[in-house]
Structure formats: C-alpha cells, structure tokens
C-alpha cells in the first residue's frame, strides 16, 4: 500500500494558499500549514487596536483557513531572522521597502527546513505566475525554488501546468492533470475554483497583506533608520510604526500621538519604554517621545501634542510628563502650536 504523502503548505490566510492546500487535500495528501510571523503583516491586530474598527472580525485569517480546511497550522515567530531579509535583501526592494523576492525565498527556505525536520514530502504555495511584480513571475519563481533549497519539492498547484514538473508530480504523489495553469493578476479563476469547491468565505485575496508594501509605513521605517543612523529595528518599533501620528520636529527625536481611543490605550503600554505626555487640563491623546531629549525638546513635543488636544485653541494645555518606566511624573504647562506652526516636513 502506498504511504500517505505529506505536504506542508505556506498559509497566508488569503484565498490562493487556501485553494492550493484544498487541492492537495482533494488528492489525498496530508497537509499541515505554516504561517510565519514577521511583524509586518496587516492583520487583525491593527483592527484590534483601533476602536472604530472593533466591528471588523478580529480573527487570524491563517488560523481561520486552517480550521476551515481541517488542517493543523503552525504559526512561527521569525521576527529576528527576518531582519536580515528587510535590512539586506539580496534581490533588492520593490516600490517601497518590500523585499518580496528575498521574503519568498526566506519563507520557502524555512518551510523546507520544517519539512525536513518533520519528515514531510514536499511544500506547496498558492503562488500564481504573474500575480505579483517581484516574487511571482515566471523568471523569479525558479529562483525561489533554487535559492530556498526546496528545488523540485516545491509545488505551486495553481500554476503548475505552466511550470516544470516537480518531484511530487514525477513520483505520482500528485496527479498533474488535476493541477491548474492560472496566470496573471485577474482573480476570476480563483473565485470560480472557490465556488466549485464550496468555499464561500475568504479574506482579502493575494495582496495588501504586508506593511512593507505600504508607502507611508515604508517612509516611517526609513525615517527610523535615518534617525538611528543604522538599519535596525525590534518588534516594538515595527508595531509602533503601524499606529499613531509620527512627527519629527528635530532629527534626534519624534513624537508619536494617538489618533483615537484604541491607539491611545495601546500607546499606554509603551510608557515603560518612552517618555509619555498625557494632557490633564483638556481631553486629548497620549503622546510618546522617541529619542534623547532636552527639557526644551520635551516642551516642544508637548506643544505639538497640545495641538491635537481639545485645548488646541486655548492659551495653555497642562500635561503630566512621565519619564520612561516611571509611575511618577511632573506637570508641564505649554502653549499649543498653531496649525501653521506644525511644519509639513515634520510629518513622517
């Protein structure tokens, strides 16, 4: 009797990886999913932070896909290892700070390592030729297979008929005749396949899932690197760049100001790391100061924060200023900046 073959699937939570996994399940392959957490994903937590998005489903889409398909999902923290991908991408960046080709190579390489460790037979992804400008092109998809080490054990069920045969097809573990030849950016074939398979619910498919593809986010990350004088980050940096207004009045410090209740609550958790400003005379957002500051800088930061409080048109706004990780602070009274005094170039 032939052994049941096992495939590990990269599961992003989007439609394509869901379809790829389902196609393998339909062929009797045992599938387990991998989802790698880099810190840069646009996912439920950003909705969880912001109060006005509380009605949006806060589910982790990869977990939802796994449960829907009835497969195990291993969510793996790769934040530290992924830094080299973001900071030194061998294949460069896309339009912003998105190292998409290096990212895909990294993820397939990690999947390959997991496959070997857990004695699985091959890897599948939901990649489609021509769907993404960097990593999902006919020219670059072989690069992913080769440089990840996965080589002929990497199968892309949705585009397989436009790619050379892989080991699972050659060995008969997978019937190539049941694989597809989807190409391009149109989603029609995927939607049609989903309907055929009875999949009626799925998250935003195949794109917009990484903050590094976002122009504004990339600008904030570049600003962080410039201010630090080096290309480094930690997970807190990655998370903070996703929320609040970032205002840099001087090269050596910036002010992060919450935009609404949920963000303010989230920023409170960072009082352990930064100087915080909380208005006491008026309603207003909490602000954090990131950088090495003088008393004059703190004054300036407070005047900026005051601009975003209910006291912005008043003569003074009073703040409680708390040093990092301190429960005790001091009171500071400032005159809010006028709108025209907030320089456009300060806005990150």
């Amino acid at each position, binding site marked *: 009797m032939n052994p049941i073959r096992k495939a590990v699937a990269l599961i992003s939570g989007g439609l394509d990886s869901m379809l790829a996994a389902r196609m393998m399940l339909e062929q009797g392959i045992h599938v387990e999913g991998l989802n790698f957490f880099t810190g840069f994903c646009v996912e439920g*937590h950003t909705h*969880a932070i912001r109060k006005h998005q509380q009605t949006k489903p806060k589910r*982790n889409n990869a977990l939802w896909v796994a449960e829907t398909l009835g497969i195990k999902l291993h*969510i793996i923290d790769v934040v530290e290892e992924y830094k080299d991908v973001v900071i030194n991408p061998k294949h460069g960046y896309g339009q912003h700070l998105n190292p998409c080709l290096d990212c895909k190579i990294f993820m397939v390489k990690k999947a390959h390592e997991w496959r070997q460790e857990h004695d699985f037979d091959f890897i599948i992804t939901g990649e489609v030729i021509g769907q993404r400008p960097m990593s999902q092109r006919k020219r670059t998809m072989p690069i992913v297979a080769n440089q990840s080490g996965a080589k002929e054990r990497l199968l892309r069920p949705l585009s397989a008929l436009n790619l050379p045969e892989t080991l699972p097809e050659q060995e008969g573990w997978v019937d190539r005749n049941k694989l597809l030849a989807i190409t391009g950016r149109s989603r029609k074939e995927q939607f049609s396949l989903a309907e055929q398979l009875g999949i009626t619910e799925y998250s935003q498919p195949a794109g917009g899932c990484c903050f590094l593809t976002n122009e504004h986010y990339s600008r904030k990350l570049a600003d962080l690197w410039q201010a630090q004088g080096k290309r480094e980050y930690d997970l807190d940096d990655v998370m903070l760049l996703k929320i609040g207004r970032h205002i840099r009045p001087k090269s050596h410090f910036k002010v992060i100001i919450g935009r609404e209740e949920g963000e303010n609550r989230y920023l409170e958790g960072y009082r352990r790391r930064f100087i915080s400003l909380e208005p006491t005379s008026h309603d207003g957002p909490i602000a954090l100061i990131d950088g090495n500051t003088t008393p004059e800088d703190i004054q300036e930061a407070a005047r900026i924060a005051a601009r975003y409080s209910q006291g912005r048109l008043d003569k003074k706004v009073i703040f409680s200023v708390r040093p990092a990780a301190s429960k005790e602070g001091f009171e500071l009274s400032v005159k809010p900046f006028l709108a025209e005094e907030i320089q456009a170039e300060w806005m990150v």
Partner: protein
Amino acid sequence: MKYTLDLTYLLCPMPVIRFGQLAPQMKSGDTAHLICSDPGVEYDVPAWCRVHGYTIKSIHKSDEQILIDIEKP
C-alpha cells in the same frame, strides 16, 4: 501541572505563538492560564485549540484583561 502565561500587551498572533511554544511541554491533563489584553485572543486562542485539539475550559473578560484557561487532552 498548571502553567500561567502573562501575554499582556502582546497582539495577534503573539499570544497563540507563545502558547504554541508552551503547548508541547504540557502533558495530558495539564492546564494553562493565559492573561491577555488583545481582544483578538477571543477568536485566536479558541481557534488554535480547535485546530490542535486542546480544550478551552473558560474565558473571562474584564475591561482590562481576557483570562483563558486551557486543558491539554
């Protein structure tokens, strides 16, 4: 054995990642008490448990925290 994980201020998917790292160390019948603040855990943790065959014993919510008790079958 009862384990306690303080996952305050950790956002999705870090709570399930941290619990996923603990889970292999748990023996059958062991329980884990998760202290969370991310509203997303109300979906993520039960979903993870369903996917991996663990049992949610209880979920308690207050303004500040979400407390989840899990048992390994």
